[in-house]
């Protein structure tokens, strides 16, 4: 077990190194000289002197490998540099927006658990009935609906038509009123995935021998399902919840932008529009670190909860 964990942690290093190269080279993938593009104004192209001055100020005048190593060294020390636009520290912007994302993700997660677990159990218990069919169709729609369209439908109904909730914004430090619609939108696909997993996992548990035994000794069905089957069926579901945080991060890109929720998704979209490369680079690295750590925790807890999995063969 310990060897497995150590190996997994060591494997993170090359992955993150790769991420750092990808994010760093983002500036050079883009067509055009970043300094020139950034300084372009309605009055025309910037003067060569202004471009040179900007390059020196942002360190863009150094050879690429020097820039990369210097940048990487700073990143490892938690310094992501300064925004090209606001000239504020990137790390501050990332931390601030990540807090908003975390807040929204937690509420989405809670909503999605409240909806999906009971529905998954219901579908499994009522297997092959119309209720099961409806739950499964609902789950399939939940993963297929474009979140940007769902956001629009919710805004149209609850904000424009009923006028119950604000259209968008962060409100007073991200209050519940502003959080409901984005949280529902964000939580839908993870609710769908969780409900499906809950159903299949409970069905699998119900087909095991110990369930037959429990039934044979005359236990009421409620206890058979609630106590014996559910306990085992929840293991994969709980680990899946960790992975769902990854889903939530992906969804955050569009959902935060639509609802004007100042999270990390909104930050990335916004800085790509503005070509604010230091912010893009920093955000991608930061997200990757969070994501990789999350996956590591999920994997370890899965092998811990499920001793049947051999970790020697897993790479």
């Amino acid at each position: 077990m310990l060897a497995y964990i150590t190996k997994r942690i060591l494997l993170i290093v090359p992955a993150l190194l790769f991420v750092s190269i990808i994010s760093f080279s983002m500036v050079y993938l883009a067509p055009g000289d970043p300094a020139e593009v950034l300084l372009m104004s309605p009055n025309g192209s910037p003067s060569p002197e202004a471009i040179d001055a900007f390059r020196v100020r942002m360190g863009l005048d150094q050879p690429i490998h020097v820039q990369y190593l210097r940048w990487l060294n700073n990143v490892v020390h938690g310094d992501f540099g300064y925004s090209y636009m606001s000239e504020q520290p990137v790390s501050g912007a990332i931390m601030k927006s990540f807090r908003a994302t975390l807040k929204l993700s937690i509420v989405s997660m809670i909503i999605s658990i409240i909806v999906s677990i009971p529905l998954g159990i219901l579908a499994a218990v009522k297997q092959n009935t119309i209720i099961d069919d409806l739950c499964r169709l609902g789950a399939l729609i939940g993963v297929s609906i474009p979140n940007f369209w769902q956001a629009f439908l919710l805004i149209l109904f609850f904000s424009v038509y009923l006028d119950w909730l604000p259209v968008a914004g962060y409100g007073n430090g991200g209050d519940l009123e502003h959080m409901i619609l984005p949280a529902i939108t964000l939580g839908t696909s993870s609710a769908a995935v969780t409900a499906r997993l809950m159903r299949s996992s409970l069905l699998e548990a119900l087909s095991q021998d110990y369930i037959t035994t429990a039934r044979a000794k005359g236990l009421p069905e409620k206890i058979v399902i609630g106590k014996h089957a559910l306990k085992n069926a929840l293991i994969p579901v709980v680990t899946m919840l960790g992975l769902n945080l990854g889903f939530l991060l992906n969804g955050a890109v569009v959902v935060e932008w639509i609802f004007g929720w100042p999270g990390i998704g909104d930050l990335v979209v916004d800085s790509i529009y503005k070509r604010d490369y230091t912010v893009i680079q920093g955000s991608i690295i930061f997200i990757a670190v969070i994501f990789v750590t999350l996956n590591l925790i999920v994997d370890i807890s899965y092998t811990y909860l499920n001793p049947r999995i051999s970790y020697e063969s897993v790479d």
Partner: protein
Amino acid sequence: MSQWTKNRNILVGLSIISLLIFIAVFAPQIAPHNPTEVNSKIRLQPPSKEYPFGTDHMGRCILSRIIYGARVSLLVGVAVISGSLLIGIVFGTVSGYFGGLADDLIMRLVDGFLAIPSMFLALALAGALGPGLFNLMIALIAVEWTSYARVVRGSILSVKEQEFVEAARGLGASDFYILVHHVLPNIISPVIVIATLGIGYAILAAAGLSFLGFGVQPPTPEWGSMLDDGRLFMRKAPYIMVFPGLAIMITVLAFNFLGDGLRDELDPRSRKEIPH
């Protein structure tokens, strides 16, 4: 084949997909109007007999734009999955069959790609490469290929040690012969399933990126960018956003239906363990 037609998911999925392909191919014959014809006199008209889905902010027929939009979405879905499959199968095969240093290097590369949540990676790449259909596809292939490489590698690892492969090798078959005749046929099933689901995902992600302005550029009719167009007129003309979104959802749903059905049929393990 007869048992496949009994699977409702496959049937529903295939029917919708066939219809979509038909619509995409015969778009010029089906569409009532020219999808890019601008007419400021008929801006933002609600659905009518002449314009069944209404007109957008430039007076273009929304139904016609949705019909033509099927071309872009299906093209992106199929192209992205073909590209990802090609890369994934090559890397996955080299990695799984030959192992060693090649395996290590390829798997570290896969880890690197998987370390960034897919939407962030696609967005950052699409943003860096600049807008356009081709760049959009590159960005999506970059996030999709890893899953094929992993599945192919995993399947090869499990097939490689089986007796019939040993037997073939004992009979003097070359690596290439064994790969093509014994290993690849055995990994087709899982690949078909994830490729079908992958097309749905690619269409959804492409629409999302186009919605943000990083994909297909106007005036090309594309569902995601049509939704973006409608955003500013959502109070006055909500139907601009209703129909393109519906089109995306139905298309993605169809591929998810098909993929789910295929998984039930092709993966005997899931059939036994997870009754449906």
